Protein backbone atom coordinates (compact mmCIF):
# COMPACT_ATOMS: atom_id res chain seq x y z
CA UNK A 1 0.00 0.00 0.00
CA UNK A 2 1.88 3.01 -1.27
CA UNK A 3 1.73 6.50 0.13
CA UNK A 4 1.98 9.49 -2.16
CA UNK A 5 2.37 13.11 -1.18
CA UNK A 6 1.16 16.16 -3.04
CA UNK A 7 2.40 19.57 -2.04
CA UNK A 8 -0.13 22.26 -2.81
CA UNK A 9 1.01 24.85 -0.32
CA UNK A 10 0.44 28.43 -1.41
CA UNK A 11 -1.87 27.45 -4.23
CA UNK A 12 -5.18 29.10 -4.83
CA UNK A 13 -8.64 27.61 -4.86
CA UNK A 14 -9.12 25.19 -7.70
CA UNK A 15 -5.49 24.09 -8.09
CA UNK A 16 -5.18 21.64 -5.14
CA UNK A 17 -8.37 19.92 -6.24
CA UNK A 18 -7.33 19.70 -9.89
CA UNK A 19 -3.91 18.33 -8.97
CA UNK A 20 -5.46 15.80 -6.60
CA UNK A 21 -7.88 14.67 -9.28
CA UNK A 22 -5.02 14.08 -11.70
CA UNK A 23 -2.80 12.38 -9.16
CA UNK A 24 -5.44 10.01 -7.81
CA UNK A 25 -5.60 8.33 -11.20
CA UNK A 26 -2.01 7.08 -10.68
CA UNK A 27 -2.93 5.36 -7.44
CA UNK A 28 -3.95 1.76 -7.04
CA UNK A 29 -6.85 0.84 -4.83
CA UNK A 30 -5.82 1.06 -1.19
CA UNK A 31 -3.07 3.58 -1.83
CA UNK A 32 -3.01 6.75 0.21
CA UNK A 33 -2.58 10.28 -1.15
CA UNK A 34 -1.67 13.05 1.25
CA UNK A 35 -2.39 16.54 -0.02
CA UNK A 36 -0.73 19.39 1.85
CA UNK A 37 -2.79 22.54 1.55
CA UNK A 38 -2.97 25.91 3.18
CA UNK A 39 -6.02 27.30 1.40
CA UNK A 40 -9.21 27.01 3.40
CA UNK A 41 -11.46 26.58 0.33
CA UNK A 42 -9.49 23.49 -0.65
CA UNK A 43 -9.91 22.17 2.88
CA UNK A 44 -13.61 21.91 2.07
CA UNK A 45 -13.81 21.05 -1.62
CA UNK A 46 -11.07 18.39 -1.83
CA UNK A 47 -12.63 16.10 0.82
CA UNK A 48 -16.09 16.71 -0.63
CA UNK A 49 -14.97 15.67 -4.08
CA UNK A 50 -13.05 12.65 -2.76
CA UNK A 51 -16.02 11.43 -0.75
CA UNK A 52 -18.30 11.83 -3.76
CA UNK A 53 -15.93 9.51 -5.62
CA UNK A 54 -16.17 6.93 -2.86
CA UNK A 55 -12.76 7.35 -1.23
CA UNK A 56 -12.05 7.48 2.51
CA UNK A 57 -10.97 10.95 3.59
CA UNK A 58 -9.42 12.37 6.71
CA UNK A 59 -8.45 15.99 7.29
CA UNK A 60 -5.65 16.78 9.71
CA UNK A 61 -4.91 20.33 10.78
CA UNK A 62 -1.14 20.41 11.18
CA UNK A 63 -0.79 24.07 11.90
CA UNK A 64 -2.81 27.28 11.92
CA UNK A 65 -4.13 27.43 8.39
CA UNK A 66 -2.34 24.30 7.14
CA UNK A 67 -4.03 21.00 6.51
CA UNK A 68 -3.16 17.51 5.36
CA UNK A 69 -5.98 15.89 3.43
CA UNK A 70 -5.45 12.15 3.59
CA UNK A 71 -7.28 10.29 0.84
CA UNK A 72 -7.41 6.52 0.69
CA UNK A 73 -8.37 5.36 -2.77
CA UNK A 74 -11.37 3.12 -2.70
Amino acid sequence: MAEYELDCMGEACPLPLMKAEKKIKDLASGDVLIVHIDHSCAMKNVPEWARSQGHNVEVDEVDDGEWDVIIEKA
Partner: protein
Amino acid sequence: MAETANAPVRRSIPRTTTRKKKKSQLPIAMIVLLLMIAAGILLSAFKDSSTGMFLMFGGVFGFILQKSRFCFTASLRDPCITGSTSLTKAVLVAFALTTIGFTAIKYNAFASGQAIPGMSYVQPISLATVAGGVMFGVGMVIAGGCASGTLMRVGEGFHMQVLALVFFVIGSLWGAKDMGWWNLNVIADSPRVFLPDVFGWLGAVVIQLLIIGCLYVAADLWERKKLGIKDEE
Protein backbone atom coordinates in the same frame (compact mmCIF):
# COMPACT_ATOMS: atom_id res chain seq x y z
CA MET B 1 -21.75 5.44 -4.43
CA ALA B 2 -22.03 8.90 -3.13
CA GLU B 3 -21.89 8.40 0.62
CA THR B 4 -19.15 6.39 2.33
CA ALA B 5 -18.65 5.81 6.02
CA ASN B 6 -15.61 7.73 7.16
CA ALA B 7 -13.52 4.88 8.40
CA PRO B 8 -10.13 6.04 9.68
CA VAL B 9 -7.55 5.91 6.93
CA ARG B 10 -4.76 3.39 7.44
CA ARG B 11 -1.35 4.93 6.95
CA SER B 12 1.77 2.96 6.23
CA ILE B 13 4.02 5.64 7.72
CA PRO B 14 2.78 6.77 11.13
CA ARG B 15 2.73 10.49 11.79
CA THR B 16 6.03 11.27 13.48
CA THR B 17 6.32 14.99 12.83
CA THR B 18 5.70 16.90 16.02
CA ARG B 19 2.97 19.48 15.84
CA LYS B 20 4.03 23.06 16.37
CA LYS B 21 2.30 24.43 19.43
CA LYS B 22 -0.51 26.60 18.15
CA LYS B 23 -0.65 30.05 19.67
CA SER B 24 -4.18 30.88 20.66
CA GLN B 25 -5.68 33.73 18.63
CA LEU B 26 -8.58 34.18 21.02
CA PRO B 27 -7.18 37.35 22.72
CA ILE B 28 -6.84 39.02 19.30
CA ALA B 29 -10.39 37.97 18.45
CA MET B 30 -11.71 39.52 21.65
CA ILE B 31 -9.85 42.79 20.99
CA VAL B 32 -11.11 42.98 17.40
CA LEU B 33 -14.67 42.27 18.56
CA LEU B 34 -14.48 45.03 21.15
CA LEU B 35 -13.07 47.44 18.53
CA MET B 36 -15.95 46.60 16.19
CA ILE B 37 -18.51 47.16 18.93
CA ALA B 38 -16.85 50.47 19.83
CA ALA B 39 -16.80 51.51 16.17
CA GLY B 40 -20.48 50.59 15.88
CA ILE B 41 -21.42 52.67 18.91
CA LEU B 42 -19.37 55.65 17.70
CA LEU B 43 -20.90 55.43 14.21
CA SER B 44 -24.41 55.27 15.64
CA ALA B 45 -23.74 58.21 17.92
CA PHE B 46 -21.98 60.51 15.46
CA LYS B 47 -23.39 59.48 12.10
CA ASP B 48 -26.67 57.62 12.24
CA SER B 49 -27.87 54.31 13.57
CA SER B 50 -28.16 52.67 10.16
CA THR B 51 -24.38 53.00 9.57
CA GLY B 52 -23.77 51.19 12.84
CA MET B 53 -26.16 48.49 11.71
CA PHE B 54 -24.35 48.18 8.35
CA LEU B 55 -21.14 47.52 10.27
CA MET B 56 -22.87 44.82 12.27
CA PHE B 57 -24.38 43.21 9.15
CA GLY B 58 -21.02 43.32 7.41
CA GLY B 59 -19.25 41.67 10.31
CA VAL B 60 -21.91 38.97 10.65
CA PHE B 61 -21.95 38.27 6.89
CA GLY B 62 -18.18 37.94 6.86
CA PHE B 63 -18.24 35.56 9.79
CA ILE B 64 -20.94 33.36 8.22
CA LEU B 65 -19.22 33.43 4.82
CA GLN B 66 -15.93 32.38 6.35
CA LYS B 67 -17.24 29.64 8.60
CA SER B 68 -19.50 28.09 5.98
CA ARG B 69 -16.92 28.50 3.17
CA PHE B 70 -19.68 29.86 1.00
CA CYS B 71 -18.21 31.05 -2.28
CA PHE B 72 -19.94 32.76 -5.19
CA THR B 73 -16.87 32.26 -7.34
CA ALA B 74 -16.84 28.52 -6.71
CA SER B 75 -20.57 28.32 -7.41
CA LEU B 76 -19.98 29.35 -11.01
CA ARG B 77 -16.48 27.97 -11.57
CA ASP B 78 -16.78 24.49 -10.09
CA PRO B 79 -19.45 23.20 -12.48
CA CYS B 80 -17.05 23.89 -15.33
CA ILE B 81 -13.83 22.70 -13.70
CA THR B 82 -14.77 19.80 -11.45
CA GLY B 83 -18.47 19.26 -12.07
CA SER B 84 -19.38 19.90 -8.45
CA THR B 85 -22.51 22.01 -8.01
CA SER B 86 -23.02 21.97 -4.25
CA LEU B 87 -22.11 25.66 -4.00
CA THR B 88 -24.19 26.51 -7.08
CA LYS B 89 -27.19 24.98 -5.36
CA ALA B 90 -26.39 26.90 -2.17
CA VAL B 91 -26.33 30.19 -4.10
CA LEU B 92 -29.66 29.31 -5.72
CA VAL B 93 -31.17 28.65 -2.30
CA ALA B 94 -29.86 32.05 -1.17
CA PHE B 95 -31.48 33.69 -4.21
CA ALA B 96 -34.78 31.99 -3.49
CA LEU B 97 -34.79 33.16 0.13
CA THR B 98 -33.87 36.73 -0.76
CA THR B 99 -36.57 36.78 -3.46
CA ILE B 100 -39.17 35.96 -0.82
CA GLY B 101 -37.68 38.38 1.70
CA PHE B 102 -37.32 41.35 -0.61
CA THR B 103 -40.77 40.82 -2.10
CA ALA B 104 -42.16 40.90 1.43
CA ILE B 105 -40.36 44.18 2.18
CA LYS B 106 -41.37 45.81 -1.09
CA TYR B 107 -44.95 44.63 -1.00
CA ASN B 108 -45.32 45.80 2.58
CA ALA B 109 -44.20 49.29 1.56
CA PHE B 110 -46.48 49.21 -1.48
CA ALA B 111 -49.49 48.00 0.45
CA SER B 112 -49.14 50.64 3.15
CA GLY B 113 -48.79 53.40 0.59
CA GLN B 114 -45.15 54.19 1.25
CA ALA B 115 -42.44 54.58 -1.38
CA ILE B 116 -41.06 51.18 -2.35
CA PRO B 117 -37.42 50.95 -1.20
CA GLY B 118 -34.66 49.78 -3.52
CA MET B 119 -36.33 50.69 -6.81
CA SER B 120 -33.10 52.33 -7.96
CA TYR B 121 -31.69 48.82 -8.20
CA VAL B 122 -34.15 47.88 -10.93
CA GLN B 123 -31.61 48.37 -13.69
CA PRO B 124 -32.18 48.11 -17.44
CA ILE B 125 -31.22 44.79 -18.93
CA SER B 126 -28.66 45.36 -21.65
CA LEU B 127 -25.38 44.21 -23.19
CA ALA B 128 -23.60 46.19 -20.48
CA THR B 129 -24.68 43.48 -18.04
CA VAL B 130 -23.29 40.78 -20.33
CA ALA B 131 -20.00 42.61 -20.83
CA GLY B 132 -19.66 43.29 -17.12
CA GLY B 133 -20.57 39.72 -16.25
CA VAL B 134 -17.97 38.22 -18.56
CA MET B 135 -15.24 40.56 -17.31
CA PHE B 136 -16.13 39.97 -13.68
CA GLY B 137 -16.35 36.23 -14.18
CA VAL B 138 -12.90 35.97 -15.72
CA GLY B 139 -11.50 38.26 -13.05
CA MET B 140 -13.01 36.49 -10.11
CA VAL B 141 -11.81 33.04 -11.13
CA ILE B 142 -8.27 34.35 -11.58
CA ALA B 143 -8.35 36.41 -8.40
CA GLY B 144 -9.85 33.60 -6.38
CA GLY B 145 -12.84 35.54 -5.11
CA CYS B 146 -15.62 37.94 -5.95
CA ALA B 147 -16.33 41.05 -3.89
CA SER B 148 -17.46 39.36 -0.69
CA GLY B 149 -15.00 36.50 -1.07
CA THR B 150 -12.05 38.85 -1.56
CA LEU B 151 -12.90 40.89 1.53
CA MET B 152 -13.44 37.73 3.54
CA ARG B 153 -10.08 36.30 2.48
CA VAL B 154 -8.29 39.57 3.21
CA GLY B 155 -9.62 39.10 6.73
CA GLU B 156 -8.32 35.53 6.73
CA GLY B 157 -4.87 36.77 5.82
CA PHE B 158 -4.37 35.63 2.23
CA HIS B 159 -1.87 37.88 0.48
CA MET B 160 -3.28 37.18 -2.96
CA GLN B 161 -6.61 38.70 -2.03
CA VAL B 162 -4.98 41.86 -0.67
CA LEU B 163 -3.55 42.33 -4.16
CA ALA B 164 -6.97 41.53 -5.63
CA LEU B 165 -8.53 44.16 -3.35
CA VAL B 166 -6.20 46.87 -4.66
CA PHE B 167 -7.23 46.13 -8.23
CA PHE B 168 -10.85 45.72 -7.17
CA VAL B 169 -10.74 49.35 -6.07
CA ILE B 170 -8.92 50.47 -9.22
CA GLY B 171 -11.35 48.57 -11.41
CA SER B 172 -14.39 50.01 -9.64
CA LEU B 173 -13.06 53.54 -10.01
CA TRP B 174 -12.40 52.96 -13.71
CA GLY B 175 -15.89 51.54 -14.09
CA ALA B 176 -17.41 54.52 -12.34
CA LYS B 177 -15.46 56.82 -14.65
CA ASP B 178 -16.71 55.05 -17.77
CA MET B 179 -20.27 54.63 -16.50
CA GLY B 180 -21.31 57.77 -18.36
CA TRP B 181 -20.34 56.22 -21.70
CA TRP B 182 -22.11 52.96 -20.93
CA ASN B 183 -25.22 54.78 -19.79
CA LEU B 184 -25.36 56.88 -22.93
CA ASN B 185 -24.54 54.25 -25.51
CA VAL B 186 -25.75 50.94 -24.17
CA ILE B 187 -28.03 51.26 -21.20
CA ALA B 188 -30.24 54.22 -21.99
CA ASP B 189 -32.23 52.50 -24.73
CA SER B 190 -32.62 49.22 -22.88
CA PRO B 191 -35.83 48.16 -21.17
CA ARG B 192 -36.16 48.38 -17.43
CA VAL B 193 -38.35 45.55 -16.24
CA PHE B 194 -39.76 45.23 -12.74
CA LEU B 195 -41.33 41.78 -12.60
CA PRO B 196 -44.27 42.67 -10.33
CA ASP B 197 -45.31 45.27 -12.92
CA VAL B 198 -45.57 42.53 -15.51
CA PHE B 199 -46.80 39.52 -13.54
CA GLY B 200 -48.24 41.04 -10.40
CA TRP B 201 -46.68 40.64 -6.94
CA LEU B 202 -47.60 36.98 -6.43
CA GLY B 203 -46.97 36.05 -10.05
CA ALA B 204 -43.49 37.55 -10.00
CA VAL B 205 -42.49 35.58 -6.89
CA VAL B 206 -43.94 32.34 -8.23
CA ILE B 207 -42.24 32.68 -11.62
CA GLN B 208 -38.89 33.61 -10.10
CA LEU B 209 -39.01 30.71 -7.65
CA LEU B 210 -40.01 28.35 -10.46
CA ILE B 211 -37.01 29.45 -12.53
CA ILE B 212 -34.71 29.06 -9.53
CA GLY B 213 -36.21 25.63 -8.90
CA CYS B 214 -35.53 24.55 -12.49
CA LEU B 215 -31.95 25.79 -12.21
CA TYR B 216 -31.56 23.84 -8.97
CA VAL B 217 -32.72 20.63 -10.62
CA ALA B 218 -30.43 21.31 -13.60
CA ALA B 219 -27.47 21.83 -11.25
CA ASP B 220 -28.24 18.55 -9.49
CA LEU B 221 -28.45 16.64 -12.78
CA TRP B 222 -25.19 18.24 -13.95
CA GLU B 223 -23.39 17.11 -10.84
CA ARG B 224 -24.70 13.58 -11.12
CA LYS B 225 -23.60 13.45 -14.71
CA LYS B 226 -20.15 14.96 -14.16
CA LEU B 227 -19.19 13.16 -10.97
CA GLY B 228 -21.36 10.09 -11.26
CA ILE B 229 -19.72 8.86 -14.42
CA LYS B 230 -16.38 8.49 -12.62
CA ASP B 231 -17.89 6.05 -10.10
CA GLU B 232 -18.61 3.56 -12.83
CA GLU B 233 -15.07 3.42 -14.16
